[in-house]
């Protein structure tokens, strides 16, 4: 198993690239999810303000 991670002495290069790529591909959707959450909160807030104004 350690031989597999060693990658013939190029472990840092190979796994570094894999980690970087998968890391970016994990952060991007998380960021989008958070963005969406903020937007939905803003919409709910607008809705409340609108309701209070009508009263």
């Amino acid at each position, binding site marked *: 198993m350690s031989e597999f991670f060693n990658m013939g002495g190029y472990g840092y290069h190979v796994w570094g690239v*894999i980690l*970087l*790529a998968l890391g970016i591909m994990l952060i991007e959707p998380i960021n989008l999810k958070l963005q969406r959450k903020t937007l939905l909160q803003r919409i709910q807030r607008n809705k409340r303000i609108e309701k209070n104004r009508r009263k």
Partner: protein
Amino acid sequence: MTFSWFKYAAPINFYPLAGKVIPLFWFLAITLTSFGLYWGFFQTPDVLSDQKQYYRIIFVHVAASWMGMWLYAMMVFWGLVGLVFNTRLSFMMAKATSTTGALMAFIALISGAVWGKVSWGTWWDWDPRLTMSLILMFLYIGYIALHSAIDNSRRADKAAAVLSLVGLAIVPVIYYSVNCPNPNECSSLHQESSFKGVESNILLGMLITALGFWMYSFATILMRVRNIILEREINTKWVSEL
């Protein structure tokens, strides 16, 4: 019932449709990428012609480089559709594509630099393909910067679409930059992108990972376009009823 494409050109109709297909794209992205990487790491020989195990960077590098190019073409396509038909959603798609494309171009450059370090002995060289790939990333950044510099979103859409259209010329240049017919006229350090002599298991791992990256791109682009729709239509009735 006839299926009308134009129906889904309206953000109000596209928003729920995109929401429905996003999980499907995520499922495909995760399955295909993990399968492709599994195949690439476990079912392939430890050498690729004169390259040792570090050649396995190929699975990420090729997939990301392809996405960098294709997403640029896709971004231009949406921008062009927007300019011709003046449809709001196409511009939003173009904008949503730009960030994922820039990230893919970035992954391609970094993975290429690491690969170059171990196989050519240098992180960077002003080889035609490398230089063009760098310019491609700058074009993405230029698109994003120009878009965010203009306050009026419709004007920003149009200006950025025109800019991306001008940059389109670079995609075929990148594509052909390594397949130089006469090596004396245009020498390049980058390997020829030829499938000849590549073991079929390596090819399979590469193609499936690339397909997984496609699905990933669709998933994130649709997620982003949904956010853009909400942001731009925040004052409309249908959004306030969500």
